[in-house]
C-alpha cells in the first residue's frame, strides 16, 4: 500500500522546511522529495536503522538488559526522587508538547532543567536579554533583503536549504534572485530531477556566474556594487557557503568582536586609530560598512562561530548592536541560525511557563535562571548533580569529555529513539518514537513560527512517545513522593503519640521536626 504525504515537515535543523513529499509503502518511508541530504539520511534511512532501541533497558551488573516499561519507569522515577539534585537535559528534538511536561517534571522534582540551547545558541538568547534584537521572520527577509550577510556560519552544511528557501537563491516580492534563474536554467538543461537532487545534496559545486576571486584583495570586488540581492560571508575559513557568496571576508579566529566594534564605528562615520582589525584592512571594512548602509534591507545571519568562540554572547551582543546602529540609517535585521529543529521551541515553552528560556533551577520552589550557574555544562563541570535525565539529545557525542565524565559518575536516564552515544552510556534507557516521523507535535522554526509536525508511519510496537514517557515518570514521581510523605507522617504520628503522655506542646515538637 502506497501513500504519499504532502507538506511534511523536516525535523533536522531550525529551518523546519515544510514542503517535503514523503512516500510511504508498508509503513516504511521509501521516498522523499524536496528535502536536503541530511533530511534524506534521516527520513529515508536513519530512522529505520538497526541501531533503533525497541525495549527499555536497565543496567544490571554493568550490562544493559531489557526490562518492562513499568520497571524502567519506576526505576527512573526512583533515581530522580532519591537524588539530591538531578539535572534534566535535552528537549530540543522533542515536540513542544513534551517540553511542556518536562517543565512540570522539573518543578515537581525541584531539579535543574536545561536544554541544548546552552551549547548552541544560548549565548544568542543571553545577548538578546542584554540588548534586545531587531529581527524578522524568514519570509520578510526573502521578500525584501537586498543584502544577506552570513557571519560565522555555514548554512550550506548546517542548514542546507536556508539559502535556497529564504535568502540568496529565492525570489521575494520586492527582491529577485539572479541565482534562482540560474539554478532553474541549470535544472532545465541537464534533466531536472538529477540536478535538483545533486543540488540538494550539495555535492555538485556548480559555478555561479563569473566573478573576481574572493580572496583578500585591495579593492573590493565589483560584485558588491552590483544591483539586486547580494550575499556576503564572514568566516574564519572558506566554507561551501563562502564559495557561492558574492563576497567572502576571511577573519582571524576569535576576532569577530573587534570587527563588529570597528564596523559600528565606521557605520557611524567615525575614524579608527588602527589599520587592520582581525586580519582585515580597515579600508576594506569601510567599503563593507558603505555597502551595509546603502542596502535597502539588510539581514545578518550568524552561527555558532560567534557563540562558541572567545567572547561567546558578547560577540552576538555586538552583532546586534551593529544591526541597531544600522537601523538608524536603513533597515536591518539580525537572526541566529538555530540548530536543532525545536531548540527555539524549548526556549519558547520554558519561557512562557517560567519566564526563562533555559538554564533553570527549581530547587527553591520557584524558577531561578542563570547561565553559568544552572547550565548543564557548568553543573557537570562542578559536579553539582547526582543524577541526570537526558531526553532527545546526545551529549555523549556533543559535550566535552570532562563534563561527560562527571555525568556518568552518577545514575543516568536516557530517552532517545536510537542507540546514540548517550543511550550507550545510560543506566536506564528508554526507547521512543521519532518525533515528526512516528509522532506529530509542534515545533518552532528559528524565527519562532510554530509549525505542526506530521506523523507519517506507525512506530514499532511497544515504543511510546517521549511525551508519554515523561508523563509516566512524572506520575510515578508524584506517587513515590506521596508514599514518602505518608511514611514521614506516620513517623511523626508515632512520635507525637509517644510524646503525648509527656504533655509537651505539640507545637514546639512540630517546630523541632
Amino acid at each position: 500500500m502506497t501513500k504519499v504525504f504532502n507538506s511534511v515537515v523536516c525535523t533536522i535543523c531550525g529551518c523546519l522546511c515544510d514542503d517535503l513529499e514523503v512516500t510511504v509503502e508498508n509503513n516504511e518511508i521509501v521516498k522523499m522529495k524536496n528535502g536536503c541530504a541530511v533530511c534524506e539520511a534521516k527520513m529515508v534511512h536513519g530512522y529505520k536503522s538497526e541501531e533503533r532501541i525497541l525495549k527499555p533497558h536497565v543496567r544490571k551488573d554493568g550490562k544493559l538488559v531489557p526490562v518492562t516499561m513499568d520497571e524502567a519507569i519506576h526505576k527512573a522515577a526512583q533515581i530522580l526522587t532519591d537524588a539530591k539534585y538531578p539535572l534534566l537535559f535535552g528537549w530540543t528534538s522533542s515536540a513542544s508538547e513534551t517540553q511542556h511536561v518536562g517543565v512540570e517534571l522539573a518543578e515537581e522534582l525541584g531539579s535543574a532543567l536545561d536544554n541544548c540551547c546552552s551549547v548552541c545558541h544560548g549565548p544568542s538568547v543571553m545577548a538578546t536579554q542584554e540588548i534586545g534584537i531587531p529581527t524578522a521572520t524568514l519570509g520578510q527577509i526573502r521578500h525584501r533583503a537586498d543584502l544577506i550577510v552570513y557571519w560565522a556560519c555555514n548554512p550550506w552544511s548546517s542548514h542546507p536549504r536556508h539559502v535556497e528557501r529564504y535568502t540568496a537563491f529565492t525570489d521575494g516580492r520586492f527582491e529577485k534572485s539572479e541565482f534562482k534563474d540560474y539554478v532553474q536554467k541549470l535544472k532545465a538543461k541537464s534533466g531536472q530531477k538529477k540536478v535538483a537532487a545533486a543540488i540538494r545534496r550539495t555535492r555538485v559545486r556548480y559555478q555561479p556566474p563569473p566573478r573576481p576571486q574572493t580572496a583578500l584583495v585591495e579593492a573590493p570586488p565589483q560584485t558588491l556594487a552590483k544591483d539586486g540581492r547580494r550575499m556576503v560571508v564572514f568566516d574564519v575559513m572558506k566554507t561551501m557557503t563562502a564559495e557561492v557568496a558574492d563576497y567572502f571576508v576571511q577573519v582571524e579566529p576569535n576576532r569577530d568582536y573587534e570587527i563588529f566594534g570597528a564596523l559600528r564605528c565606521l557605520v557611524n562615520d567615525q575614524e579608527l586609530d588602527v589599520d587592520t582589525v582581525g586580519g582585515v584592512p580597515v579600508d576594506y571594512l569601510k567599503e563593507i560598512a558603505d555597502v551595509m548602509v546603502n542596502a535597502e534591507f539588510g539581514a545578518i545571519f550568524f552561527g555558532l562561530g560567534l557563540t562558541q568562540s572567545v567572547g561567546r554572547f558578547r560577540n552576538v551582543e555586538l552583532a546586534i548592536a551593529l544591526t541597531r546602529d544600522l537601523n538608524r540609517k536603513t533597515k536591518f535585521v539580525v537572526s541566529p541560525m538555530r540548530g536543532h529543529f525545536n531548540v527555539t521551541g524549548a526556549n519558547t515553552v520554558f519561557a512562557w511557563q517560567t519566564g526563562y528560556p533555559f538554564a533553570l533551577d527549581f530547587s527553591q520552589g520557584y524558577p531561578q535562571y542563570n547561565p553559568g550557574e544552572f547550565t548543564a555544562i557548568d553543573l557537570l563541570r562542578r559536579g553539582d548533580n547526582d543524577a541526570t535525565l537526558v531526553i532527545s539529545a546526545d551529549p555523549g557525542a556533543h559535550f566535552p569529555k570532562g563534563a561527560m565524565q562527571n555525568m556518568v559518575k552518577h545514575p543516568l536516564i536516557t530517552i532517545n529513539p536510537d542507540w546514540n552515544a548517550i543511550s550507550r552510556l545510560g543506566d536506564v534507557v528508554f526507547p521512543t518514537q521519532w518525533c515528526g516521523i512516528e509522532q506529530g507535535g509542534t515545533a518552532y522554526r528559528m524565527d519562532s513560527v510554530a509549525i505542526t509536525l506530521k506523523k507519517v508511519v506507525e512506530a514499532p510496537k511497544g515504543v511510546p512517545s517521549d511525551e508519554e514517557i515523561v508523563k509516566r515518570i512524572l506520575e510515578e514521581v508524584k506517587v513515590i513522593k506521596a508514599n514518602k510523605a505518608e511514611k514521614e507522617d506516620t513517623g511523626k504520628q508515632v512520635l507525637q503519640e509517644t510524646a503525648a503522655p509527656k504533655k509537651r506542646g505539640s507545637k514546639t515538637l512540630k517546630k523541632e521536626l
Partner: protein
Amino acid sequence: MITLTPKRTFTVPIQAACINVDVFTGKTLQEIKNLSITEGKETITLNDAFDITEDKTIETPNITLTGDFSKVKRIGQGMKTGEIVINGDAGMHTGEKLSGGKIVVNGNSGGWTGSEMKKGLIEIHGNSGDYTASPYRGTSTGMRGGLIIVDGDVGTDVGCYMQGGLIKINGSAGRYLGFHMLDGTIYVGKDCSIRAGACMTGGKIIINGAVELLMPTFTIDSVKPKVKIDATQIAQGPFYVFLGDIAEHGTGKIFALKATNPTLSNYEKYL
C-alpha cells in the same frame, strides 16, 4: 561571634542566603540552627549541614565560616551591617547586593561575588570568579559603590555596568573587564586580557601590566605621568590614556602602563 563549620563535604550546591549578620542578629543559637537552607532540592536546617557554635566574648567578626564553603551560595547576600570572615573558599553570589558591612574571604571566591553591590567592603585574599561585581543577567545597573579588593586574579566579565565604587585587583584580569562601565574605577595590578572596557561609556580602568589587545574602538588621548586610584592612592606611570568606547560614543578612560605595553607605542603617532 557565631562560627560555622561544615559537617561533611558537600557535593550538591547549598543556597544559604541566611548566613547573614542581619539575619543572625537578635536570634538565639537554637533559632540560628533552625534556619532553613536548601541542599540541592532538599530543604534542611543550617544545623543539618554545619556545626554551629557561639562565642559571646568576641564581637567582630560577627560570623566566622571555617572550611570549604565553595558549594555554599549567597553568603551575606544583601547584608547591611556587620562582618563575615570566611576561612576557606566561598561559593557563588557571596556578598551579592551588599549594602554595608564587610566580608573577608581567606581563600577564593565564586562567580557573581559582590554582584550589584551598593556599599561596604569585600576583601578576597585569593582569586575571584567570573562576573565579580557584575549585575544579574539582563540588568544594566552594576556595582554602585563600595570597595572590592582581590589579592589574586579575577575571571571574565568583571565590573560590568559598574556605576561607582572601586575594584582593586592585585593580580591579573580576564576578558571584558569593565564591560559597559558607566562610572567608577577598576585597577589591575598585573596583566589584562582582551576587550577591556568594551562598550564603556565612562569611568576608568587602570592597567599596571600588559594589555593583551586593545579594542579598535578606543582612541588615544594622551600620556599621563600618574593617575589617582582613589582619594589616597596614586598609580605611578607614565600611562597611555585611551578614550572610548567610541562605538558607544563613550568617554571612558583606559590607563595602560607605558613600560609594560611596548605594542601600544604605534598609537603615539596620533598624539
